[in-house]
């Protein structure tokens, strides 16, 4: 190699190399399963407490129920999380904040809607100032109840882990660029037009 310019790199055909690398990683080494396995044990929810279900959220991570045993740790910044638990009512101004938080999170990301208000309005079904969360972000698991007990939230986390492993949600979204159940989720795109400062 002596005497050659150091800025030259010999890679051959880059498309062939990329295809070979993809076949090796996805076919032989089964990288997708590794991604799914790793995602199930690192579902970190972001702190987005909007309503009274937040009390049950706190109880779920308390020592008695200890949801951290599933690898879920509530974290501050949306840039370092991949999981939103919508706790209850979303008002029209909060819908914009929810959508911004969702857009800030890195792929793959999952959403749980918790409580009767997040399902269909609940107590505030005829209020002028709430939105349904499924109009704002795509939702994976719903938990009924007003409020749901901590066992319900723990079971929803187990359910989302199961569907990630079975449907390969994380690996297809991350490696192949699509999500198996993406066609069922149709959030609105203009949520932040509702709130004009």
């Amino acid at each position, binding site marked *: 190699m002596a005497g050659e310019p150091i800025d030259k790199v010999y890679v051959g055909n880059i498309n062939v190399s990329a295809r070979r690398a993809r076949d090796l990683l996805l076919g032989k080494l089964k990288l997708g399963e590794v991604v799914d396995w790793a995602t199930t044990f690192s579902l970190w929810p972001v702190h987005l407490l909007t309503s009274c279900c937040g009390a049950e959220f706190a109880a779920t991570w308390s020592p008695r129920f200890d949801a951290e045993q599933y690898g879920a740790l509530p974290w501050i910044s949306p840039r370092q999380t991949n999981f939103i638990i919508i706790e209850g009512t979303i008002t029209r101004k909060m819908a914009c904040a929810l959508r911004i938080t969702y857009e800030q999170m890195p792929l793959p990301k999952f959403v749980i809607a918790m409580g009767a208000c997040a399902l269909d309005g609940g107590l505030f079904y005829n*209020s002028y100032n709430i939105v349904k969360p499924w109009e704002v972000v795509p939702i994976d698991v719903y938990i009924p109840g007003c409020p749901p007990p901590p066992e319900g939230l723990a079971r929803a986390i187990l359910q989302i882990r199961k569907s990630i492993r079975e449907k390969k949600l994380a690996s297809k979204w991350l490696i192949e660029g699509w999500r198996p159940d993406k066609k069922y989720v149709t959030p609105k795109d203009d949520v932040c037009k509702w709130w004009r400062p």
Partner: protein
Amino acid sequence: MSLESLAEEVKKVLGGFAKEVAWRKGYLEVLVETANVVEAAEKLKSIGLDHVKSVTAVDYPKESKIRVTYHASSYSREDLMGVIVGLSVDLPRDNPEMPSLISVWDGSVEFQEREVYEFFGVSFKGHPDLRPLLLIQELAEKKVLRKDFIVKEESIYEGVPFKYD
């Protein structure tokens, strides 16, 4: 301080401004004219009622008026700390306008007047930042806490519409 002596003091300090001084379930309510409300508030502040606990409004559609009430109380005079004095103004319902009391009780009325503005459509002249606080702009234009804004109700029996008394 008993309510009787407070009523005497308030009557004395307000002079001819008070149209009506009444006790309503443990607090003292004073009704004044819209033109005199700033002077009346300054006189109430001069006896030690130095802040406002809440600003609220009531809609009377049959009498075609909106009554805006300021609940004033005190942090500085010890005998006035347990007392609430309501300073009320009657406004016409089709164009409710009154001078803002932010020049008198500055910090404590700022966001509460914004709240009355967005829910009842009362515009406060002289308020520096009159825009909706909790609602979005489209809902604030509908004046949602007035009595003629009806929300959809779910009836007990299916197919039978819900009726208000």
